């Protein structure tokens, strides 16, 4: 049972990381980035390539991958988001879907259709906690994401840059009037988001194989998690992700492992049917 919980929490932490990336962008520019799962995939591939082909030490690979994705994040927002920033919401969503298609297939061309495997920092051994065998990578995931969430809370609430980014997210016009360079804040938001995805990718890679398809379903589930938690809410994204990770693993173990992927969405629809704005949802009222 402990094993399951740790598994679930770890997977949940990954969902939370990806969901966080989605929510940060959505808050800033009211756009859902459907390519976020592919960002994770890219991060994993870059790290894998650095480790396997270039034989770099794993930690270095992790760090470089995150940095590479940071650059990518900037490029992505310049090419795909910027020309569309005035367009209706659905147009932007579709174009991020286009980007995700592009990335998935380019990845397939570059790295081939065969899944890659690269071991994380701990190799394949499990460690023992009491009576249970636990995959140390899971613990690493929990540890790192925990630290990250603390860091993020500090960054966004205590640092000047973080608060500028929050201001931009809440009201672009007002922020601009205060002298904040909105386009730069937006760029930072995208960069941060893709770094989160890269981190999720490198943490996850040792648990599963790295393949061009790894991002798709994961991205969708992370999106579902952010909605369950209440779209637009940062704690919502984190809690939603963790919740989803645990529910998924428990359902797969006790109900049916065949329908594992479906549980995330069943939970989603149930939550939405009861709480149309998720657990901590944004309260939007339309002026009549």
């Amino acid at each position, binding site marked *: 049972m402990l094993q399951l919980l740790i598994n679930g929490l770890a997977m949940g932490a990954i969902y939370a990381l990806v969901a966080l990336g989605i929510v940060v962008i959505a808050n800033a520019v009211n756009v859902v980035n459907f390519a976020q799962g592919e960002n994770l995939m890219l991060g994993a591939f870059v790290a894998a390539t650095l480790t396997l082909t270039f034989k770099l030490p794993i930690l270095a690979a992790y760090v470089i991958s995150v940095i590479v994705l940071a650059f990518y994040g900037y490029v992505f927002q310049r090419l795909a988001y910027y020309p569309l920033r005035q367009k209706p919401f659905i147009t932007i969503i579709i174009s991020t*879907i*286009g980007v995700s298609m592009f990335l998935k*297939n*380019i990845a397939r061309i570059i790295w081939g259709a065969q899944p890659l495997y690269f071991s994380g920092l701990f190799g394949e051994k499990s460690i023992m906690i009491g009576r249970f065998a636990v995959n140390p990578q899971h613990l690493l995931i929990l540890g790192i994401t925990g630290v990250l969430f603390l860091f993020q809370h500090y960054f966004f609430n205590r640092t000047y840059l973080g608060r500028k980014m929050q201001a931009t997210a809440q009201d672009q016009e007002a922020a601009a009037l205060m002298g904040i360079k909105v386009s730069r804040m937006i760029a930072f938001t995208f960069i941060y988001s893709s770094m989160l995805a890269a981190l999720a990718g490198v943490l996850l890679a040792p648990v599963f194989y790295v393949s061009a398809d790894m991002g798709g379903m994961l991205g969708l589930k992370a999106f*579902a998690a952010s909605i369950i938690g209440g779209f637009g809410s940062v704690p919502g994204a984190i809690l939603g992700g963790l919740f989803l990770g645990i529910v998924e693993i428990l359902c797969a173990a006790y109900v049916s492992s*065949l329908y594992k992927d479906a549980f995330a969405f069943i939970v989603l*629809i149930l939550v939405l049917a009861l709480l149309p704005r998720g657990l901590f949802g944004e309260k939007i009222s339309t002026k009549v």
Partner: protein
Amino acid sequence: MKNRLLQKLAWALLLGVLLVLPHLLPNNYYRGVVNLSLIYAIVAMGLNFIYGYTGYISFAQAGFFGVGAYTSALLVVDAHWGFWSALPIAGLAAAACGVAIGIPALKLSSHYLAMATIGFGIIIQMVMQNWERLTHGASGVHDIPSITIGTYNVDSAVGQYYFLLGFLALAMFVTWAIDNSKLGRSFKAVREDEIAASSAGIDLTFTKVFSFALSAFFGGVGGSLYAHTSSYISPDTFSFDQSIVLFTMVLVGGAGTVCGPVIGAIGLTLAPELLRFLKEYYMALVGVGIVLIMIYMPQGVVHLFSQDGRVGRWLQSVKQRSTR
């Protein structure tokens, strides 16, 4: 005078080409592609109701497509029904699913709705893959018999083409009929301004759920046609990716118009064939293409040619210059 004549000639030419198209194509492979595009056109027209006319995002259309295909295939193959009885049931089964997602969706909008419909579609696909006793699981349903009209068997690519063309024409007529009616206006009113629509007496619940059901019905009918012209179906076809393709067809062709989804479907089904030489780069380019289309013609092809669109206005200026 001359213009009218030219227009009529153009239409006559189009009609002529449509009538002899299968004979103009070199082999059954290409005929199959054309037939597939006709089926997707019908399914895309379904999506057009909930998205184009009522303004609600739905990424579940492939799911409805699949429900129709499976219902029809299983009724005929396992329960030994005839096609003509299975077809309406397939449509209704899909419509029931449309209601099933339509009701919880009532309170949702934009990203919540998008995600809920994605989730619903994925759940449907998982059921297709895993409920083996009912659906034959991942191996799919084989040897689905073709459609029979009386004693005539619609099993050749040419025969199927005319049959599907007829159905497409019917679907277009129904869409046109709804577009120009109180029902169509009520869909559009909900899309434009729900609150004003409600204050004018439009029942939002009924309109939205009915719109979902109608969309799903078209999807289901398309699915049945697909099953009986392809003779084999499997869960892989009815994926979220397929829902995206369908959605893109509506968007690229022109949402909220009668011809838009048809143009989009035909274009996006034929394009991979025409671009076959690009091989594995094809899908990547589709992705880029989608982004470019969203940037340069987000309202679709039909809008480009309408009075406000770039091509339409250019055509008007050409016409004005030529009449001077």
